[in-house]
């Protein structure tokens, strides 16, 4: 490895780094925001290209073009997805309800190939132990699970604690009974049949 070649490798590395940085900034936050499984693959794709460029295994121009094409395709799909709800549905999918009012939505779970263990795991990550607390658990488009609790299970708010006799009558949270005696069972939390 003569110094000349090493220098060229270093320069190519630097040039590619700057170029990719510029490209990603131009793509904008949303394009690289939701890091989905597909984004990981795109990142790997870029990585393969950058790899070849730095070692000079492909002509520099060819490599840069490859980066531009990949970034362009990403931008195009992102714009397409933004342009119409139907495209969003095709390109990104729609959120799926996993739990409604404490009940597993088994048909939805099946279509997302999730079983109870997966759902309970996601609930635990959101510090939910008891299914009864769950008003709605949704599998979002980016794969994360959002949990909306029943009103009675929501965290305390200031209005609950501050002493205001007048407000006490109005603030009666309506419709929710307190939950039946909550015998929190670690087996239930782990999703085993109780």
């Amino acid at each position: 490895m003569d110094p000349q070649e090493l220098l060229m490798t270093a320069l190519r590395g630097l040039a590619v780094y700057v170029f990719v940085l510029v490209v990603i900034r131009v793509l904008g936050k949303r394009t690289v925001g939701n890091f989905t499984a597909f984004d990981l693959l795109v990142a790997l794709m870029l990585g393969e290209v950058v790899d070849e460029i730095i070692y000079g295994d492909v002509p520099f121009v060819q490599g840069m073009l490859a980066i531009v094409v990949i970034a362009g395709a990403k931008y195009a799909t992102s714009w397409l997805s933004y342009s119409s709800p139907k495209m969003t549905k095709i390109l990104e999918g729609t959120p799926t309800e996993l739990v409604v009012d404490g009940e597993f939505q088994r048909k939805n779970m099946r279509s997302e190939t999730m079983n109870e263990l997966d759902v309970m795991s996601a609930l635990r990550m959101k510090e939910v132990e008891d299914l009864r607390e769950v008003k709605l658990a949704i599998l979002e488009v980016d794969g994360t699970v959002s949990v909306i609790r029943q009103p009675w299970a929501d965290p305390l708010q200031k209005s609950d604690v501050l002493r205001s006799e007048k407000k006490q009558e109005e603030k009666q949270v309506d419709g929710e009974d307190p939950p039946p005696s909550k015998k929190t069972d670690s087996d239930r939390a782990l999703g085993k049949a109780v």
Partner: protein
Amino acid sequence: MLELLPLVVRILVAYFYLLAIVRLSGKQSVSQATPVDFVISVVLGDLIDDLLWSEVAVSQFIVGVGTLVLVDVAILIMTSRSARLFLLFNGGFPVLVRDGAPQYETMKQQQLNDADLEHLLRTKGVEPENIAAIHLATLEQDGHLSLLKAREARDAQHHDADAAKRLRRKRT
């Protein structure tokens, strides 16, 4: 200039094929990925590389990627139907702390020592002294720790305040 066209075509083929496959296979988040998912991603990356620099034919790429994803999805479906298969392929959900007691057996299996456990607890904002406040600390699929606190240590909820209010009203 024109000799760059095949490269562009190959990139676009790879891009949209992967997009379609990922959408159809239903895989979504990276954050809940298991170690197997990452291995598959790396292999896919390598397959892409081979196509991009025309070391393999497009047909080979399509079949190679397709097969890999198909097997992955098939395993996913099988493990989602059977709890036993799920545990076989993915491992269980190791419980590291149960009702304030560290589960040393499980920790040994996971090759975690005390320092590791303390670190994991800290990521959830729990000091080692407060370990008694933990009902269940589980190691989830993606390596994160999920924390369920003991009843008294849990954040207060609406119905707790309602119960307290009702009590107050009864007394007055």
